[in-house]
Structures are given as structure tokens and as C-alpha cells.
């Protein structure tokens, strides 16, 4: 089995983002960027398949600016075999949306014909959570989203739902899987593997050279910070609290 993993370079989870002066986007100047946490889980799952000798090759793909090569290197240091970098100057947090990414990935899948495609369930910048599903539709293959565990022998996936998990089966490979929080705990790359990753191959090509029309169909009008939380009030007693909940909050 050959596995293709998609990874995205996003603002690091720990960064407190600021709105840019023109209110059109989040300010990315001098901000720490890292691999999207859910993509880390996808990479880990693929690497574990390789280590379990179920996968023969793991290919990592990223679409993004020149610096996204660092994100690919991180995935290579975690254990992927080779990388594909589709370069673009579009902002991947808002200009290049899920459908464009899905179409680009579909092109790569057609070229590489992997048996399994594993993505994160969503990225922590755009937070759309639909790239995986769109990719499966473009490819006309089964999709198993929000995976909490994947069993390739039994062809079943345990999926996260709002009320717990459900087990679904998929008829055949190739199929698209998206990784949820509980799928695994991703590893940190070791120092020797970081050194070795330097020697692994990354194939770089321009995203707009694939003949895909990149049109999202939506436009960002304004980006603004959430309103600051207002100060609370003290109520005199339980009756006062119940009154507020009933008459002001309307939740009772």
C-alpha cells in the first residue's frame, strides 16, 4: 500500500493572532508558523503504517509558499519518504480555500495513484474542515472523515461524532481519510532523523502549472477580533440567579 499525506503550514497554535491593519486578514508578519496539528496526526498515522510494514511508501504533499518546504521537511523527519511541494503566492489561510486545495490534491493523486490519502480533519487557520470530503468527491472514492481509528485489514473506521464514536466500513481503496484528535499521539522528530530528512527528495512545482482553475467562489470582506468579554455581575441570591436565567438569558 502507498500512502499520500497532505500537510499545511499554519500560524503556530500558541501564537496570539492579530488582525492586520487593513482588516482583510490575520497579520502573518514575524509570526511563528508550524505544521497544522491535525496534519501532524495524519503524518503520524501514515508513518505508523510504514513502520508496521503495511505501507511501502509515504508521500507528503503541501501547498503553500516557499517556506512550506520546512513543513514538508518536518514530515520527512517524522518518517515520510519523499515530498511534493506545490508553490503558490496565494494566502493558504483564506485565498486558496478548501475546494481549490482539493482540486490540486486530486491532480497529485491522479499522478501518484496512492491507495490511501490521509489528511487532517481541518486546519486551525481557515477551520473549514471540508478539504478531505471535497477531495473524495473529486476523486469519486470513499471518504472516512473524523477518524479515531483506522483498520485497513477489516476495512473499518471508527469515527468521532457528537455523541461518541461510530464504526463504518469502507468498500475499497483508494479512499480518503481525515484524522481526528484521538487517532494517535504524533511523535516529535528525533535529531538524527531531522538530519536525515535533509537528504530526502522534495519535488517542487508551481500550483498554477497543474491546469486547475483556482476559484473559491467566496471573498473575505472583513476580519475582526471577537468582541472583548464583558464584565459579569453579582446576583444577591439563588432566586436572583434563577430570575436572570429565566428572564434575561432565556435558558430556563
Amino acid at each position, binding site marked *: 500500500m502507498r500512502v499520500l499525506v497532505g500537510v499545511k503550514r499554519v500560524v503556530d*497554535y*500558541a*501564537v*496570539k493572532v492579530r488582525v492586520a491593519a487593513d482588516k482583510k486578514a490575520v497579520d502573518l508578519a514575524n509570526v*511563528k508558523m508550524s505544521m497544522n*496539528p*491535525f496534519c*501532524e*496526526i495524519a503524518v503520524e498515522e501514515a508513518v505508523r503504517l510504514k513502520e508496521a510494514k503495511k505501507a511501502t511508501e509515504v508521500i507528503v504533499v503541501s501547498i503553500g509558499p516557499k517556506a512550506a518546504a*520546512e513543513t514538508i*521537511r*518536518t514530515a520527512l*523527519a517524522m518518517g515520510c519518504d519523499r515530498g511534493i511541494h506545490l508553490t503558490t503566492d496565494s494566502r493558504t489561510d483564506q485565498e486558496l480555500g478548501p475546494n481549490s486545495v482539493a482540486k490540486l490534491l486530486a491532480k497529485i493523486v491522479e499522478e501518484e495513484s496512492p491507495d490511501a490519502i490521509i489528511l487532517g480533519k481541518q486546519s*486551525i487557520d481557515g477551520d473549514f474542515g471540508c478539504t478531505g470530503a471535497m477531495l473524495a468527491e473529486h476523486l469519486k472514492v470513499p471518504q472516512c472523515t473524523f477518524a479515531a481509528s483506522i483498520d485497513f485489514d477489516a476495512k473499518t473506521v471508527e469515527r468521532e461524532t457528537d455523541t461518541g464514536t461510530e464504526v463504518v466500513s469502507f468498500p475499497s481503496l483508494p479512499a480518503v481519510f481525515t484524522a481526528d*484528535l*484521538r487517532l*494517535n*499521539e*504524533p511523535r*516529535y*522528530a*528525533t*535529531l*538524527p*532523523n*531531522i*538530519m536525515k530528512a*535533509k537528504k530526502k527528495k522534495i519535488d517542487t512545482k508551481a500550483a498554477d502549472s497543474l491546469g486547475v482553475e483556482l476559484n473559491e467562489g467566496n471573498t473575505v470582506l472583513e476580519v475582526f477580533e*471577537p468582541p*472583548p*468579554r464583558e464584565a459579569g455581575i453579582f446576583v444577591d441570591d439563588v432566586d436572583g440567579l434563577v430570575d436572570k436565567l429565566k428572564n434575561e438569558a432565556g435558558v430556563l
Partner: protein
Amino acid sequence: MLRIANKIPHRARRALSSTAHSPPASRFCDINDLNWQLHSVPSLITPFDDSMTMPILEAAENFVNAHGHLDPLFDVHESKFDPSKIGDKSSPTASPITLHPETKPLLDKYVAAGFTQMQDPEGMNLPYTLSCAVNAVTSSAFTSGVLGHWTLTQCAANLLAKHGSAELVSKYHVKLIDGSWTGTMALSETQAGSSLLEITTKATPSGTPGEYKIKGNKMWTSGADHGLYDNVIHMLLAKTENGISLFLVPKNLVNDDGSLGARNDYQINGVNHKMGCRGLANCYWSLGDESDGATGYLIGEEGKGLNCMFFMMNEMRIHVGIGAAVCGKRGLQESLTYAVDRVQGRRKQPNSPSKPIPIIEHNDVKRMLLQQKAYSEGGMMLCLFAASLSESTAKSDRLLLEVLTPLVKSWPSEWCLEANKWAIQVLGGYGFTRDFPLEQIYRDNRLNMIHEGTAGIQSLDLLGRKTMLADGAAFKLFLSRVGEACERHSSDPATGTLSAQLAFATEKLADTTLHLVTKMAKGEVDEALASSHEYLNAVGHVAVGWMWLEQAGAAASNPAFQESSFLQGKVLAAKFFYEHDLSKVPEVCSRLRNSVSVVNSTTASHLLH
């Protein structure tokens, strides 16, 4: 799952933070600063693929972010010593010492992440300076010294590789670098600390070539036992009839096929109850109590033990300097984290809105933060510079390193402890509690003025030996390198004043050095050396002033200077150091030159009445 689950509330907390300032990216360390120091200051560049530096430093940062929360455990739960288990030989690991149960998993993860292989010539073979920077990151979260198990092991392995016979190397070296066994340095004895010539442990040839029987005792051996790994390999000093010699003494003897044999005849008699650095048990022990001696193997030649050992000691001295600078920087990160969140007091300016402000905006708090920055980032650069010199094969670099080694050992350990004093002060009462990590960091850092040669020993080494080394050529080289730097930065308006100040201090220092050296040559050794500690600090301030001049120069000439508060902060910290610290050097030099030492005029009876 845990890892990402930890991330999300963390992110949410940041987003809800009500103050205008973002806290530092990590409360442990600052890899951007280390990366900048390694790449922006010309003298530190070593031949290495620059694009790899940041991923490697990030790997180290990941390690401390993932495990740094454990360190207070090692501080609170000091090692336990059970006397009933002295002499327990039931297994290779059997030991009277028990460390906190999280110790071994942490040490194993450190090995698994590859940190012990950084200097392996057959493996990663990282430049020494870069491996020092990585150590600076990993140790930032572990001031309890728990990772010292591997630092000492690394030093023991390097010592063995450099001076040991091929047979000893093949038998022991691999196990020391692959994380199977640990190593120590066993020099001191109860009656012989700073003065190793007083050691009484004796080694006599056993009859087998290279093998000796050793009888005696050792004191202050860190990691002498732990019960965690199958073997402990001591690099131990003992006297033969030809003088002090170096021996390899294993806890468990090793058979020719590499399997473990009988337990060697030594016993751990107890652990020292330390003020800090409690993650590493520090032991006193005795050899040869039950037989004609513990088995040891000669490393190098008989009588050359101290020479061999000083190879390792110099490396350890750079480690101590880095450890101290790291504690200083950690204190800064912790107090910055507090100062952006703690809202207290209002602006004193007329007409400013009377809303309480985060304390980082108060001038006296800024002073305390700048002071920490000046000491810790200046101290770190001095250590990295010394590390880069030790990589060099150029004779002049080695000579310069001779002068810098006592400074690297002593300056950060004294002044970054001072930095920690101000870190505690920023937190006020909270800084004095165990709910915040600063009191632990202060206690842990306090060791650095003491071990691997006390501040006093370093000052005697500097004034009594290094000033006259190679007929004074080493010290002249130091002065001329500082002078060159002053020259180089004199024309830039941002650093011109700093250059002039440093040149003036250096001139005064040269003059005073000549005076003190002449005094010693005339036989007034006690009078001259009475000022050695003040002299050490004066030279240290000039050396760190030099490092700050290099940093300020690199920052000011960077095209991004106008937009970068990081680069502007470097120049401001340099200016602060010059105003508050370097400015004292000319005055101290004049006094050392012109007055008779009060210390030398004081006798023991003046102090005892």
C-alpha cells in the same frame, strides 16, 4: 491526544488574555535569540548547514515544552538513600539510591530524541557550538540538573575516546553514547576539593597489564549511582607511585564479550543533601573496603591524570557557564511572562488615564528585566564564543580560550545568579514562594559558582596563571581582540559611543594587569592576588562588554533594524550593560592599581577578634 488536547486550551487561554502584550513564546527558552547569536555575529559561525540550525533548536524546544513540567518533581522529591541496601548486589542496577520514578522515562526520552548523539563523529557530528546551543535549550527547563546524568556521561565518553586505549574504548565507549550506561567524574575527596594534590586514594598494579587495585574514598561525585541503568563508569583520579593518574572504574565489571560480570568492590556510603540541583544524586563513596581494592583501568599514562582530566574539565567549565546563563535567561522568560499579565499600579504621568497597567510598563520593572537580559544574553554569547574557539584548531584561538575559560566558568555563574535575584524581585512576594519556579532556579543556579572550580579558584587561575601564560601573549591577544572589535564598531553611529567606552575600560584593564603582574614578579604575590576576585569580574565585564558590542553592532547594521523590536532591544540591552556595569570597570581598575589591598592587610585574628 494529550499533546494536541494540551494545545487547544492553551491557545484559548492566550486568546482570552486581557492585556495588550503577548508573553514570550516560551517560558523556558528563546531559540530565536540563540539562532540569531549563532548566525548574526561573525565570530560564531562554524561550517554547518545553516538551514538545519532552527529545526534542531526547535526539536530541543519541543522536548522542553513536552517534558519541562516534570522538573519541579525532581526538585521536591530529592533522591532517597537506604543504608540497608549498601552492598546489595542482587542485580546490576541494585543501589541504595532511589530517584523519582519519572527520572528514567525522561532520561530515556532524551536518548531516544537523539540528544546524546550530537557529538558522535560517526553519527550526527554537530559542531560543538551548536550542540552547546541545543544543551542550552534542553537544560532551560531542567535546572534541577537531572539531564546532568547525560552531560557527565558525554564528558566521560569524550575523555575515554581521547585518552583511553583502543581496548577500553571498544569495550565502554558505545555503551556510554547509546544511553545504556552512565558516566561520572570522580575527582574530589573529603580532604581534597579545590586542591586535588591532596587526594589519598591509591592505585597499585594488579599484575594484569593496565589493571589496578584502588583503595580510598571519593566525595561530591554526581550521578555516582542511581539504580536506573546497568552500569556506571567512573573517570576517577587516584595516586600511583608515579603521581596522580586517571582510571576507568566500572560499577559492574565487564567481561570480554561485553556481558556484565561481578560487582566491583566499591560502595556508596551516602548522598549529600543539597540546596538545589536535586535531580542528580551527589554521593560520597569508598573503594576497596572488602578486598585488596576496586578494579580500575589506567587511562593515559601514570602520573598524567590531571592533564587528561583537565581536557574534560575545560569542557565542563563551558557547560557550567552555559548552565548559569540558561538559568539567567530562564529567570528572564519567567519574569517576562509574569510582568505582562500582572496588572498593578497606574502611570505617574499627569493626564494619563487612571487605569491599572501591566507591571512591564513600569520603569523600575523594565530596569530589572533589562538587567537580566544584559547578564544572561551577554553571558550566553560569551559561552558560545568560547565553545566556537574550542572547535578551532588555530593556535591563537586556543590561546584566547585559555584566558576565557575562567571567565566562562565564573562570570555567568556570578552575574546570572544576580539576574535571578532580579527575576524573583519582579514577582515580588510570589517570587519568594514555591508556587513559582524562580526560587528553585535561584537555588539550582547557586551551585554554578561552586562546582568545577569555585569562583575563587577561577580568579587565581586568571590572575595567577593566565595573565602570564605564554609570557603574557595570551592575555595580550585577548586585549588586542577586544581592541579590534572596538575599532571595527567605532564608525557606526549606533555603536561608536559603546566602542569608545569599551576601549577606555580595556586600556585601564591593560594598565592594571601590567601593574599586578609586575607586583607578582617582584614577589608581592599575596598582595597582588588579594584582588583576584575583583580583577576576575573586571576582566569578565570587559569580555561580556565585547560580546555586547558584537551583538549591538550586528543588530544595528541589520537592514530590518528599524522595524524589529528584537534588534532594537539588543542595542538597548548593550547600552544598559555599558551604563550600569561596564562603567564600573575603570574605577575598579584604578583602585586595584593605586591602593594597598585591605584584604591582604587583614589577618585571621582581625576577623576572629
